[in-house]
């Protein structure tokens, strides 16, 4: 694939490069920023931060709660066996299993949401440079329309600019 990107050794320079690309007229969706760790104290670390994941987890938990409540009741009443004088489907004891299944549903939903929204597992073919693992931050554009002007925007403080 066709891409142009710069490798920066510190986040301030990377932030600058990102701002340069924005002033060159690119939208956030067209710019890719890749790093080997999250940079929460920098503005570029907060791109794409909005997520509905907590809501999805809560909804899944609620689904697990209701489903387990009914499944327990149904299975216990399907063959009512008396034990220790307790009710056939006691709420106190069922609550324990309902709680566990609620939490399990929330956890599984969180993981599935993570995999789907993060695009994992991915078979590659996307912009990446192994030097990121050495601590460099990659700021670049896939399929650029005007590689020349972008090259100027990305070349800050002598950072390496690569083209693929």
């Amino acid at each position, binding site marked *: 694939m066709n891409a142009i990107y710069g490798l920066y050794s510190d986040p301030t320079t990377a932030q600058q490069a990102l701002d340069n690309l924005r002033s060159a007229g690119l939208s956030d969706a067209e710019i890719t920023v890749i790093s080997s760790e999250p940079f929460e104290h920098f503005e570029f670390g907060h791109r794409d931060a909005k997520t509905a994941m907590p809501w999805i987890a809560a909804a899944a938990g609620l689904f697990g709660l209701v489903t387990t409540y009914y499944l327990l009741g149904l299975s216990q009443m399907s063959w009512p*066996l*008396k*034990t*220790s*004088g*307790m009710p056939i489907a006691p709420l106190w004891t069922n609550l324990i299993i309902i709680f566990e299944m609620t939490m399990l549903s929330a956890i599984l939903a969180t993981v599935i949401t993570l995999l789907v929204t993060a695009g994992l597992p991915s078979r590659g073919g996307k912009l990446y440079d192994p030097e990121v693992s050495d601590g460099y931050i990659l700021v670049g554009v896939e399929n650029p329309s005007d590689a020349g002007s972008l090259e100027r925007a990305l070349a800050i403080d002598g950072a390496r600019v690569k083209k693929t």
Partner: protein
Amino acid sequence: MAYRWGMAIDLDKCTGCEACVTACHAENNIPSVAPEQAGRGRAMHWLRVERYYEGDFPNVRVKFRPVLCQQCDNAPCEAVCPTYASHQNEDGLNAQVYNRCIGTRYCANACPYNVRFFNFFNPEWPKPLHLQLNPDVSIREVGVMEKCTFCIQRIKAAKTAAKAENRAMVDGALQTACSQACPTTAIVFGDLNDPNSRVARLAHSPRGTKLLEDLGAEPKITYLQKQPWHESDAY
């Protein structure tokens, strides 16, 4: 009306002869464990006669108490079984379903009377002892819990016969192995729901107590013994 099987054991009549224990072993195919295993606490006496000594020699009194599954109404052993191997059946008995038992032994721990026994090994009856097995009672394999069933095989047979002959059960005709073997008729078995049965009348006897009654398990066996009269009993 449904049946409610119960028992009354008269401790004043019990001589501690243990004929009941032997009869139970014979009727229910209870395996005998070797002396070494018995020494390791693996003997399985569904019904045991507990001996208590009072006083010092030469004024020693021995008291006997046959202890067997109390078939509790609020049996602590039932709710804890994860596979419903222990549950209450329609006659009020605590049923032990051998096929469902996976051997967690929680029921045995929960039973305050310690009347549940576990098959630690596969039982063996070296020939020709296998000929003495009761064909009406299944053999339990290793890992399965067992206990007194009030001779449920006899109960089932009696109920089936009564139904086939379209008559009610006669009190005293159906006997468990222990009540049948007892030479002093100390063990009385019958239907507590039948107000005319011997056991129902004995259950209301002023000599009657229940074992560990304050635990709230509501056992169905009434122990009869002469109650000492205290000055404080008079109003």
